[in-house]
């Protein structure tokens, strides 16, 4: 027979598990899209600061590397997600496409930065990729 403490612990763990399981696939897609949008947005902000002559190459290069890590993590999370239902599946597909486009834009920016310059076109691409990710956060 269980004493009262183990019973209490079982109840607490049960409640916690129930609470953590509350977010559905659509919420999770939104969460990954949000993570990727924040990363792309910070890369875009860094690009503009670099273009304005305010930031140095190593800092922006680090910012790009960190953003890339976040994008990769979001992409993996989205790819592994088992979305069920039409809405969640469409959201997942849209978000994955947006993350891939954002990754391409960031890679292009990284290549430019390695050559010591960032163009206005690149800044615009990063901003529009971030906007697409923002859009992918909601159905």
């Amino acid at each position, binding site marked *: 027979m269980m004493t009262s403490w183990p019973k209490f612990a079982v109840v607490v763990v049960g409640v916690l598990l129930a*609470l953590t399981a509350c977010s559905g696939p659509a919420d999770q897609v939104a969460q990954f899209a949000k993570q990727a949008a*924040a*990363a792309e947005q*910070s890369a875009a*902000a*860094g690009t503009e600061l670099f273009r304005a002559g305010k930031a*140095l190459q190593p*800092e922006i290069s680090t*910012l790009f590397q*960190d953003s890339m890590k976040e994008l990769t993590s979001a992409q993996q999370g989205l790819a592994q997600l088992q979305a069920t239902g039409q809405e969640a599946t469409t959201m997942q597909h849209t978000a994955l496409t947006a993350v891939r486009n954002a990754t391409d834009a960031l890679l292009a920016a990284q290549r430019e930065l390695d050559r010591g310059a960032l163009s206005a076109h690149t800044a615009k691409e990063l901003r529009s990729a971030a906007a697409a990710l923002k859009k992918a956060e909601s159905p």
Partner: protein
Amino acid sequence: MKKLLSLALGILTAIGGFVDIGDLVTNAVVGSRFGLTLVWVTVLGVVGIALYANMAGRVAAVSGRATFEIIRERLGARAGLANLAASFLINLMTMTAEIGGVALVFQLVTGISPMLWIPLAGFGVWVVVWRAKFTALENATGLLGLGLMVFVVAVFLLKPDWGQLGPQLIPRIPATEDGTTYWYYAIALFGAAMTPYEVFFFSSGGVEEKWTVKSLGEVKANVLVGFPLGGLLSISIAACAAIVLLPQAISVTSLSQVVIPVIQAGGTIAFAFAVVGMAAAVFGAALETTLSSGYTIAQYFGWSWGKFRRPAEAARFHLVMLIGVIIAVLVLLTGVDPIAVTEFSVVFSAIALPLTYIPILIVSNDKQYMGEFRNGRLTNALSLVFLAIILVASIAAIPLMVITGAGQ
């Protein structure tokens, strides 16, 4: 005049030494997600750490002995050991985060992977702890840490809409976040402000600097002026993130994002100040946590300890620190994200808070050790209120971490 200069130096060092990687990251994360709605937690944490650090400092000045020596003697070996185990592990986690933080700051300046900087940062910490004098390492890092004042300047240079920023100071849960995440970060922020190592270091540092009853005024000035001004740095980091990053929906996940507002405000010069300040603050905290690991173990087992002794005279104290640094470096070399270690370390600090602060309250009320300098009624009343807050934070930390997926 000399005394006044020493007092000013102590206060400046307390300001510059207040912020560590936990404060840097947590305040920036919170500012970028919750604006200034959690500033009240920082204020609460600063009052709490000032209250308890003052007590620990007073114990050191009056008894000439540091916290862990007395905890073991007063609470017995078994209770002392439980306290030691929790405190040492949390401290080791914080040390790992700080050494990782040093590597991340160097990455910002050079663009070179932190994996290359981690062993060098660990080696640097060990050499300084081994060779440098206590006051030299404390003053150098504390004063250079004042470079972080650039965050305060940046708040004004960014010319925020004060009318919009002011109302954010009212505690409330933003529409974009849920309640559990808000409270999770409230606890993280509280843990970052009241990190236990700060008290171990403060009290052991008092013994290193040979504080006596005559030093009580200096202790009070350092704590009551230095810590709140240090807290102002924390709030300005959150404010910078709230002004620049929150409107762009950039939630902070890396150190490279923390400096974006400063760069936007003052360009490369401001960035240089921020980097010097961050490097000094984080390196200083790495030294403090390394020393704290030696202090806690050596004081519990009654070994010879302290920087005021030659390393050969405190061999086991130095060996503990060396092993601690090696463990921290090895953990970081597995590829674990130093920012993630930082985020976990502040939450686990919150969990372990009662283990650090209850014994301090007991000892500082002990007539045998403190005589006429034991706590007054007002201090005890305030301490008990904080103890209640600390207990609630400690109990709620793990459930909130599970529910929110560590603040996701």
